[in-house]
C-alpha cells in the first residue's frame, strides 16, 4: 500500500507540474514577459503543494493507521499472551506468516481470526489514507490553481520552500548528533540504576556475564572499566609510538624536502593506505603479524599470546600514519615562508630551521593532529576485534591479550541480546564513554587548529 501511495504521489506531482506550467503559459499568451515568474515555477508551485499535502497526510495518518490495525488484530487475542512486547511481536510474526501462507501447521481459530481482522484493517486504513491524501492534494491543487496568474509570485514561494528544504538537509547533521546522544544516554542512565557509576569507572574487573538464574554461582557480573581503559591505552600508545615518528617525519620530508615529483608518488601511497578498509588490516594483523610476533617471541624464549596487544597496536599504528602525516603536512605548509627565510638568513641549515623554527611554530597544529590520530585509534574497531582478543586482562605487557572499549561493545551487542539486562546496557555505557571521549578530543583539536590558522592568516 505504501508503494502505491508514493507512486500516486509521484504521478500526481508530475502531472500537476505540467498542468501548472501549461496554465501559466496559456495565461501569458503571446506575451510571456507579462508573467512575474517563469511558467515552470508555477508548475513547481503546484507540484510542491501536492507533494507536501500528501506527505503531511501520510506522516500524520500512518502512525494512527498502525495503531488501529494493531488494536483490531489484537482485539480477539487473550490479553495474557500479549502482556509484554515479546508476546505481542510473536503474535504479529504468526499473523504475517499466516497471511504469507508460510505458517507451519494449522493456525488456531483465534490466530486465524486475528489474521483476517489484521488484513481487513490494513486494507481499510490503506484506502482511507489514500483517499484522504488524494482529496487533500486535489483541494490544495484547486486553491493553488486559482492563484496562478501574471501577478502571482510563484518563484518567491518556491524559492522560500527550497531554502527550508536545504536548511532541513543541514539540520540532519545536528539531528544525527542528537540521535547518537539520545540513543546512548538513555540506556546509560538505565545502566547506572543497576550498576553504580563508581564501580563502573573505578572497578578493576570486567566480566559482563550476569547470572540468568539467581542461584547461579560465579557469574555475578563485574563492570569495572579500568582493564578496558588500560587495554585501549596500551594499544593506542603502541599505535602512536609507531605512527607518531613515522607520520611526522614523512610529513616533514614531504613538506620541506620532497620535489614535486616525489610528492606526486608518495601522496597516493599514503592515500591508498588511508583507504584500505580496516577489516583488511585486521585480517593482516590477525593472520600475519600476530603469528609472526609469536614465532619471533618464541625464538627469544618469550611467551607471546596468540592475540597480543603488540600486533594490534603495530598494525593500527600503520593505519593512522596517513592521518598524522596529512594533517601535519597541512600545518607545516601553513607556516609562513618568511619564518623559513629568516632562519636561512641567519645561516641555519634546513634541518635546524625545521627543528628550531618550523616545528615550534607548527606545534599546536601537530599536537592537534596527534589528538585526532589518538581519537581515531581509540575508536577503531575491526583491527582490535580481529587481533586483540576478548580477555579483559589488567596488564601493561604488550605481549599479552588485552581488550578495548570497541571490542567489548561489539562482543556484547552482536548476536542474541537480552534487553534491559545490565550486560546489554553496559555496551551503551561504554559507547557513551567512547563517544564523549572522542568528541572532547576532536573538539579541542579542531579548536586548536582553528586558532592556529587564524594566527597565520
Amino acid at each position, binding site marked *: 500500500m505504501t508503494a502505491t501511495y508514493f507512486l500516486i504521489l509521484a504521478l500526481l506531482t508530475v502531472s500537476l507540474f505540467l498542468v501548472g506550467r501549461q496554465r501559466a503559459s496559456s495565461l501569458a499568451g503571446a506575451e510571456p514577459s507579462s508573467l512575474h515568474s517563469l511558467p515552470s515555477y508555477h508548475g513547481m508551485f503546484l507540484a510542491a503543494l501536492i507533494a507536501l499535502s500528501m506527505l503531511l497526510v501520510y506522516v500524520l495518518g500512518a502512525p494512527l493507521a498502525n495503531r488501529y490495525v494493531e488494536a483490531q488484530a489484537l482485539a480477539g487475542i487473550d490479553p495474557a499472551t500479549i502482556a509484554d512486547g515479546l508476546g505481542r511481536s510473536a503474535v504479529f510474526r504468526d499473523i504475517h506468516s499466516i497471511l504469507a501462507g508460510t505458517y507451519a501447521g494449522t493456525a488456531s481459530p483465534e490466530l486465524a481470526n486475528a489474521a483476517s481482522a489484521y488484513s481487513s484493517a490494513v486494507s481499510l486504513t490503506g484506502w482511507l489514507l489514500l483517499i484522504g491524501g488524494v482529496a487533500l492534494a486535489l483541494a490544495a491543487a484547486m486553491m493553488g490553481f486559482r492563484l496562478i496568474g501574471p501577478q502571482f509570485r510563484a518563484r518567491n514561494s518556491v524559492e522560500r520552500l527550497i531554502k527550508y528544504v536545504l536548511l532541513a*538537509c543541514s539540520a540532519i547533521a545536528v539531528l544525527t548528533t542528537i*540521535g547518537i546522544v539520545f540513543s546512548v544516554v538513555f540506556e546509560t542512565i538505565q545502566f547506572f540504576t543497576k550498576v553504580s557509576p563508581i564501580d563502573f569507572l573505578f572497578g578493576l574487573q570486567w566480566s559482563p556475564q550476569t547470572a540468568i538464574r539467581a542461584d547461579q554461582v560465579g557469574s555475578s557480573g563485574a563492570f569495572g572499566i579500568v582493564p578496558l581503559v588500560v587495554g585501549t591505552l596500551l594499544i593506542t600508545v603502541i599505535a602512536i609510538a609507531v605512527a607518531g615518528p613515522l607520520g*611526522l617525519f*614523512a610529513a616533514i620530508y614531504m613538506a620541506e624536502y620532497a620535489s614535486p615529483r616525489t610528492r606526486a608518488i608518495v601522496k597516493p601511497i599514503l592515500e591508498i593506505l588511508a583507504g584500505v*578498509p580496516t577489516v*583488511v588490516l585486521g585480517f*593482516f594483523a590477525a593472520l600475519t603479524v600476530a603469528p609472526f610476533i609469536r614465532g619471533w617471541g618464541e625464538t627469544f624464549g618469550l611467551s607471546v599470546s596468540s592475540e597480543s596487544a603488540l600486533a594490534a597496536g603495530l598494525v593500527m599504528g600503520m593505519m593512522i600514519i596517513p592521518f598524522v602525516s596529512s594533517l601535519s603536512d597541512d600545518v607545516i605548509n601553513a607556516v609562513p615562508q618568511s619564518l623559513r627565510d629568516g632562519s636561512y638568513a641567519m645561516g641555519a641549515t634546513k634541518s635546524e630551521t625545521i627543528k628550531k623554527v618550523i616545528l615550534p611554530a607548527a606545534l599546536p597544529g601537530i599536537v592537534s593532529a596527534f589528538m585526532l590520530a589518538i*581519537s581515531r585509534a581509540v575508536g577503531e574497531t575491526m583491527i582490535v576485534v580481529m587481533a586483540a582478543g576478548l580477555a579483559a586482562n589488567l596488564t601493561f605487557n604488550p605481549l599479552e591479550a588485552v581488550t578495548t572499549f570497541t571490542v567489548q561493545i561489539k562482543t556484547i551487542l552482536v548476536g542474541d541480546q537480552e534487553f534491559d539486562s545490565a550486560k546489554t546496557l553496559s555496551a551503551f555505557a561504554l559507547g557513551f564513554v567512547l563517544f564523549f571521549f572522542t568528541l572532547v578530543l*576532536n573538539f579541542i583539536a579542531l579548536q586548536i587548529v582553528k586558532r592556529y590558522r587564524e594566527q597565520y592568516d
Partner: protein
Amino acid sequence: MTDITISNGIPVTDYPRDALVKKRYRAERRFKFYGIAAIILTALFLSVVLLDVLFKGLPAFSEYRVDLKVTADQAALDPQNTRDPVTLLAGNYDKIIRDALAAQFPDVSTRAERRALNGLLSSGASDDFRRMISGNPSLIGQEVTVPVLLSDDADQFLKGYQTSEIVLEGTGTLSQTLNGETYSLRSTGDDFAKAFQEMQGFLFERLEKLTTESARLEKLIPGLDANAASSLQSQIDAIKAEAQTLNARITDANVAIELDEKLPSLLVNVNGGTIKASQISPSGIDGVKLITPASAEAAAPGSWSMLTLVTPESNRRVQDQAAIWLTKMKSEGLVERAFATRFFTSGDSREPELAGIRGALTGTLWTLAVTLLLCLPLGVGAAIYLEEFAPKNRVTEIIEININNLAAVPSIVFGLLGLAMFLNFFDLPRSAPLVGGLVLALLVMPTIIIASRAALRSVPPSIKEAALGVGASHQQAIFHHVLPLAMPGIMTGTIIGMAHALGETAPLLMIGMVAFIVDIPGGITDASTVLPVQIYLWSDLPEVAFQAKTAAAILVLLVFLFVMNAAAIMLRRRFERRW
C-alpha cells in the same frame, strides 16, 4: 705573546669550526634520511599487506575438480520416466558420482575405505551434475563427463598447501617380497640408505624442537602460582620423556626407524601400486600397501620412485591414503584446475569449497544504493545551504562545528545509533540493507558535505555575480550556474565517501548484518550481509581453506575500491577546471 695571531684577524686554527660545520651537515643528512626512511617504511608496509593478501587470496580463485565419466542412469534419476523437473532435482546424483569414483579404484573394498574415498568429494559434488541433467533432460541414459568438485582438504592438498613433497627416482633395481600384509622392499642401489639418513635428519629436527620448547617452558615456571606451575611441570616432563625416547632411536645409526604419524611419510610407487613404509633401515623398508601393485616383479631403475610427504600425517588433514588417491588421479590427468566461477555465483556456505561472495556482493550493492540515494541529495543540499544561504549566526556555527565533529565520531558509535534508533525505536528489520544504508548514509554525510562545500567554494564568485547581473535570482544563479560547475568536485567527494562506506564494517555488525545468510538478498528489506562483514565472518572460521577465501574476498573488495578511487581521480583530472 698571543696578540700577533689575533691582530692578524686570522684564526689560530680553523679546525674546530670545520668540525662543527661537518657535524651540522651530518645532522642535516641524518634528518633527511629519517624522513626518507619513514616514507619507505610506510610504503613497505603497504606493499607487504597487499602482497600478503594477494598471495593468500589468488589460489582461492581456482578449484580442483575430477572429471568423471558417468552414465546418467534413468533408474536413479527419473525412475518413472516423467522428466518432471521436481523429480529430476530430487534424483540420487550422489550415488552415481560415488560409484564412478569408486570405479577408478578397484582396490577399495571396505566401508571405511569407501567412506574415505567419498570424503575426497565436496558435499556439493553432485550440484553441477544435477544442474546439467535438469537443464538438459535428454542426457538421461547417456554417458557424460561431469566435473565433480573436490572437498576443501583435497583441494588444499593438490594446491600444495598441506605438505611439501620430495620425489626421488629409484636408482637401483627394486625387489619386493610379500610377507602376510607386509611388503619388504629392497633396492640394489643406495636409495634407502639416503632416505634413512634423511629420516634421521627429521628425527634430529624434532628432538631439537622438543628441547627448545621444554627450555622455554621451564623459564616460565618461576612466574606462575603453584597450581599452574605443577601442570606446566608435568607438560615439560612429558616433552622430556618424548625427547628421551627420540634420543634412544637416533643414537644407533643402523637400527631401523619406526615411522609413526609424527614423522614424514615415505611412500614407494612401484608397478602401479604404492607401499607406505612403516619401518626404514639403510637396506630397505617394510611397509603396507595403499594401492596394490599390479605385479610382484622386480622394478628396474627409474621405473619406481620414492615420495616423501614432509608434513607428518598427524599434522595434516589429508591422510596418506587420500593423498595417494589424489596423486594418482592427478598423474592420470583426471583432476583439473579451473577458474572457480562458483566464488562469484553462489552465496555463503559452511563448506569452504562451496562458499561464494554473491550474497555479500548483492547485499553491498543494495546497501550502497540506499546510502547513495540518501546521502547525495541530503549532503549536497546541506552544503549548498551552508555555503550560500546560511546567515552568519550562532546556529550556523553550531551546525558547522557539529559536522566537523561528526566526521571524527568512531564508526561503531553510528552502529549504536542504528541499533537503538532504527532497530529498537523505529522497529525497522534487522540485518537489512535498508538499515545498513541509513547508518552508512549518516556516517559518510559529513565527508560529502565537506567535499561539496569545498567544490562550491572553488567556483569563482564572478560566475555567480555575472548570473545575478543579468537578472537571475540567487537560487537560479546557484542551481543553474554554480552547482553544475561544482558537480565534478561533488561527484569526486561522493565517490570517495562511497568508497569509505564500502569498506565500513563495525556499524554494520551492530545492526545484525553478521548473520549466516545463504540466500541472495532480493531487496532492501531482506536479511543480508555485505562484503567487509563477510570477510570478517570468514576470517573467524577455523578451516584453512576459508583463509584463502577471505583473502580472495578482500581482493575483490580492494578491486572495487581501486575502481572507485580511479574513477574519482579520472573525474577530477577530466572535469576539474582551474580558474
